[in-house]
């Protein structure tokens, strides 16, 4: 069942000569995880904003959209910098996570349940009474994620969720994404952490200057030779070293792949 459908979407920011997105078509189903990869400025962030319905949108972004965006259920967006997303209106982590649901006008009971569930989910229950301003970047990103999950979205959009996190924090986020997808959430994640993709992501879309350059299963896209062009995002470290060694045949993407090829 498709949760997100983008049909030939073109988007231009206000007062901009070039379009940020050109003729993008994308379908994401419930339970699927799709990664958007591409160099800085390729349009991944814009694509997430458009998918979330924030561009053109509620007064902040503006801009011109042609084509169609259809969502089946609420979409929630997580931005890369946690400290910008802190509401500034919460004394405690609990309040911070409750911020979103409160904005949706839910009754207190429902908010309470949802918040408690999210805190447990993201493993930040031990932080519930802390002041959000005293948390580290990684902890804060998890709290914001809990806040976003507490709004019970059907579609989760994440913009570089691990860029500011240390490896332990990043691993937690990827694991959480996999679990949420198993429960039926549709997930789209823009990321430059290519090494994490084979184990976490079903499909990959490579964006270049606002257009879809390649799209397919993780293996199909990441095995491509063209990912190694100078301005392209590259594939996994293992694929890179295999290529550098000049070895033939299907490219291994992960350490286990490599081990079975090289023995």
């Amino acid at each position, binding site marked *: 069942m498709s949760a997100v459908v983008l049909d030939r979407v073109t988007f231009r920011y206000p007062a901009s000569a070039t379009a940020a997105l050109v003729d993008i078509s994308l379908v994401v189903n419930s339970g699927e995880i799709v990664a958007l990869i591409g160099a800085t400025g390729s349009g991944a962030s814009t694509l997430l904003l458009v998918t979330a319905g924030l561009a053109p949108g509620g007064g902040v972004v503006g801009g011109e959209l042609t084509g169609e965006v259809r969502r089946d259920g609420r979409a929630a967006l997580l931005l890369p*910098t946690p400290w910008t997303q802190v509401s500034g209106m919460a004394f405690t982590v609990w309040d911070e996570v409750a911020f979103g649901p409160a904005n949706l006008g839910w009754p207190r009971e429902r908010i309470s349940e949802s918040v408690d569930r999210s805190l447990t989910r993201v493993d930040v229950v031990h932080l519930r009474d802390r002041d959000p*301003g005293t948390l580290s970047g990684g902890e804060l990103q998890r709290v914001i994620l809990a806040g976003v999950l507490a709004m019970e979205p059907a579609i989760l959009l994440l913009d570089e969720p691990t860029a500011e996190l240390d490896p332990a924090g990043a691993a937690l986020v990827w694991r959480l994404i996999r679990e949420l997808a198993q429960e039926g959430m549709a997930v789209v994640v823009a990321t430059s952490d290519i090494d994490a993709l084979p184990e976490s992501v079903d499909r990959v879309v490579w964006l270049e200057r606002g257009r879809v350059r390649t799209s397919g299963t993780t293996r199909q896209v990441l095995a491509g030779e063209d990912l190694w062009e100078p301005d392209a995002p590259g594939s996994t470290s293992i694929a890179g070293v295999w290529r550098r060694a000049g070895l033939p045949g299907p490219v291994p993407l992960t350490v286990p792949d490599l081990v079975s090829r090289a023995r």
Partner: protein
Amino acid sequence: MRGLHPFTLLTVAAALPALAWIGPAPWGGAAALSAAGVLVLSLGGRQSFRVARAAVFTATPLWFFLYLLQGSGGMLATGLRLTTMIAGGVWLVAVLPPPRLIEAMIAREWPVSVAFLLAATLSAIPALRARAGHLVDAQRSRGLRTRGGPLIRLAALRALALPLVLSALHEVDERAMALETRGFDPQVRRTPLAPPPDSLAQRISRWGLVLSCVALLVWRIA
């Protein structure tokens, strides 16, 4: 004092400078500033000291400029008034955290957009302070001299103020967008999570203060 309803605290903080300006100089200013001083002292201990120090540091350069511009008479009259405003403001920031004010506004069903505008602005302040600290570190490590005579400090100002302002503007933009991602919608009535308790006594006091200011104004004009 913190248990008082946010609107009460807000009214008091607004009434002080109002009375200072409306009252005859310099006595109005002196009286209002004394009242402000009492409020600051009632914060107790270290916090009183910090608040008083912040107010004094902010006000002192102003007194200096006033002396240059208006001589000692004008300095006293205007200085007392300005200091009252500053003291009232610093006291308010110490005694009323923005989240409580926003909760109060929302519980009273003030327009959500007003509440959010205030929230975004107020929440940016601690972030800006932290950022200013990091910025000073970074620029000093690049070779910027910050200790020394007034000319040196003036030159340093550009390297510090400019990036702060630029990044603050950029940040306001991002924060506004982030608020939208958290479900902010002016059309939807937000559920108040912890509306601050109010009382009849407080309401009467608030209106009383407002009416006193108006009465004083009328009396002075007439």
